């Protein structure tokens, strides 16, 4: 709205959504935008659905918006759920990670498989990333959030210098190198020239 772009990051509490959102916000600032961001903490952290939001533009007033231009989802069902936030023709970058919620664990519900159909109906572009595999390749599965961000760079107008700075400013030094590797692997895996996106 009003020249402001909204990026929502969706996932399961504990997947590193807050760190990922902080990196996006830093990158947007490094790229010269005004930025506001909002995160959900507290009870929702304990394995529940969580959404953080980063908004950038020339001047941003509110840190939240009910509509997103881009969703980055660290889990497939949460990506499916976040379609409701996406504007038509928006982009969903999602990890192929599947974490069953309680009702699915207990066999009461089925894990949904209609993401592609639902996205197609609204002309939403899907970018699927095996973020966990990339993170393991980089050295730890816990860097899956950052590997996914690497893949999302193609949908965001921030230069590589801005992302580099954002990683350095946001990720704790002890795990910075690992996360840089994960980020690069994600970026390469989702490069627009490759097939199958």
């Amino acid at each position, binding site marked *: 709205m009003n020249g402001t772009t909204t990026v929502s990051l969706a996932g*399961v*509490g*504990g997947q590193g959504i807050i760190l990922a959102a902080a990196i996006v916000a830093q990158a947007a600032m490094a790229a010269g935008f005004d930025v506001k961001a909002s995160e959900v*903490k*507290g*009870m*929702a*952290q*304990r*394995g*529940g*659905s969580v959404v953080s939001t980063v908004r950038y533009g020339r001047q941003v007033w509110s840190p939240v918006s009910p509509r997103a231009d881009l969703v980055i989802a660290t889990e497939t*069902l*949460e990506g*499916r*759920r976040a*379609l*409701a936030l996406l504007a038509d023709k928006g982009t969903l970058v999602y990890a192929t990670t599947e*974490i*069953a*919620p*309680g*009702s*699915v*664990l*207990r*066999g009461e*519900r*089925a*894990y*949904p498989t209609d993401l592609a159909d*639902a996205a197609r109906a609204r002309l939403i572009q899907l970018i699927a990333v095996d973020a966990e595999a990339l993170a393991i390749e980089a050295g730890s599965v816990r860097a899956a959030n950052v590997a996914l961000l690497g893949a999302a760079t193609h949908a965001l107008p921030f230069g590589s210098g801005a992302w580099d700075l954002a990683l350095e400013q946001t990720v704790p030094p002890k795990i910075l190198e690992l996360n840089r590797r994960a980020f690069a692997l994600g970026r390469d895996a989702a490069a627009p020239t490759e097939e199958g996106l």
Partner: protein
Amino acid sequence: MERIPFLSGNEAIARGAVRAGLGFACGYPGTPSTEIVEELARLEGPPLVEWCINEKVALETGIGASLAGARTLVTMKHVGLNVAADPFMTLALTGVNAGLAVVSADDPGMHSSQNEQDNRHFAAFARVPLLEPADSQEAYDFVAWAFELSEEFDTPVLLRSTTRISHGRGRVVPRAPVVVEDRSYVRDIAKYVMVPDYARERNRLALARLERLRRRAEESPLNVLEAGTTDIGIIASGAAYTYAREAFPKAWFLKLGMSHPLPYRKVAKLYDSVSRVFVVEELDPFLEDQVRALGLPVVGKEVIPRNGELNQEIVFDALEPLLKRRPPRRKRAVFPPPPVIAPAPQAADDLPVRPPVLCPGCPHRAVYAMLRREKVAVMGDIGCYTLGALPPLLSLESCVCMGAGIGMMAGINRRMGRAAAVAVIGDSTFFHSGITPLIDARYNQTPGLVIVLDNRTTAMTGHQGHPGTGLHPDRSSGPAVDIEALCRGIGVPAATVDAFDEEAVRAAIREALAGDELRVLVALAPCILMDRGPHEGVVVDDDRCNLCGLCLELGCPAVVAGDEAIEVTSDCTGCGVCLAVCARGAISLPSDAGGDES
């Protein structure tokens, strides 16, 4: 002929409560409220009545008694409601079982108080009905009205007195006893566990209730339009009404006994009858501001002092000079339309929801696994352990505010005369506000069991320190308070067990439920998130597992229903809680299954 009793307002409230079927009363002494509990204790065949350690614990105990089916009165002075504000504000969402009235005795003029706050705002703040008696007879009669409104509208009722009402005396004609409907404890997790999802729904109901209450205030016989013979009208309640009545005996009056929510149409009716209207009220322009918001010309606090008590002369001297002025131009009242209440957002797609859950390896689950086998109501409050209320565990039955579970347990058990309820409370919450209700339960000789779920941190908010750990924000450490020793100091038998030691936890629960004394069990095991592993998961014997689903009822995210047998994900920490519930011995610890036993 029987002599008509000559009673103070406080004595009248006490007797009016008994006449209205009172089952339980408690409070903390504070002028001018004190004599209500004292009078109740003096009455023959008194209901359960007790002093509590403070007003917050008194209200929480009262909530427990109401849940257990007792019409309940909780008394305090105005500043006491500040102490009880935490349960009061959320009680307004949960509502009640048997009627519950909170008496706030305010002290305009500060005869015996540190401030003179106007607690009528609390009724508006919490969106609950407000009753204001103007003399002892009304004080007596209004208690029954309060209980009836409370039960009919499923809300606490604020019964507000002031010094001159509580300590003034008058004749009180006794009324026939009220026949009270029998009520007993009803488990209703979505009503009494105010986790965000449930609280949002209760909040919608409370907002809708307020509009229904306004319609009731329009019809209520407590709000009376009294015809006069002059052209002036006065809106007043409580003591201020009596002063205005004497100062202007020929005026029209809108006498408000149920003064919140304000009956707009009755106000407008007064304006139809007279050409000028005054609001006479002590302290804040509580009624005046609302009348002004209807677009009606009104005179109030520009001549009536905003501080201190009023009297007949103050009221007369303030209003009399104005009577010579030309009356204001007649205006029509504009009734505010009822507010929009945002509905629950409808999910665009029917997707499986993902509520927050207790983590794999969480020690709280181990305790709930034992508790859910016992026929006992589990009162709780706020922390990760509140998640025990959600499916499939469904093991926690209340969450009103920090520390409330212990008082509520006490209220239920006092009413039932046995340990029908237990309380769970986290270690950080115990220090926050669990100690006072524990002392209170000891003082009032309440049977019961308080289980401190001691995971050595303030887990839900992100592992902050607290007095039990001695850890500070900069991670430095200082002296730590020992919960078990603290309980012993209070005189409550306490024991510490490993939260995962199911035999010890179960034995402690059963022992407490069978006895008639108060006990504390510290179920100790650090938050699993502070122990990042590596962990080895449990092992499932596919041949023995028949997918009965008992382990799935524990709500562990690491246990999945497979096609042939239970499957365990890599998130499993090997805590072993599922072993204890498996009837077929199909689950074993990795070491027992031939793994490394280091």
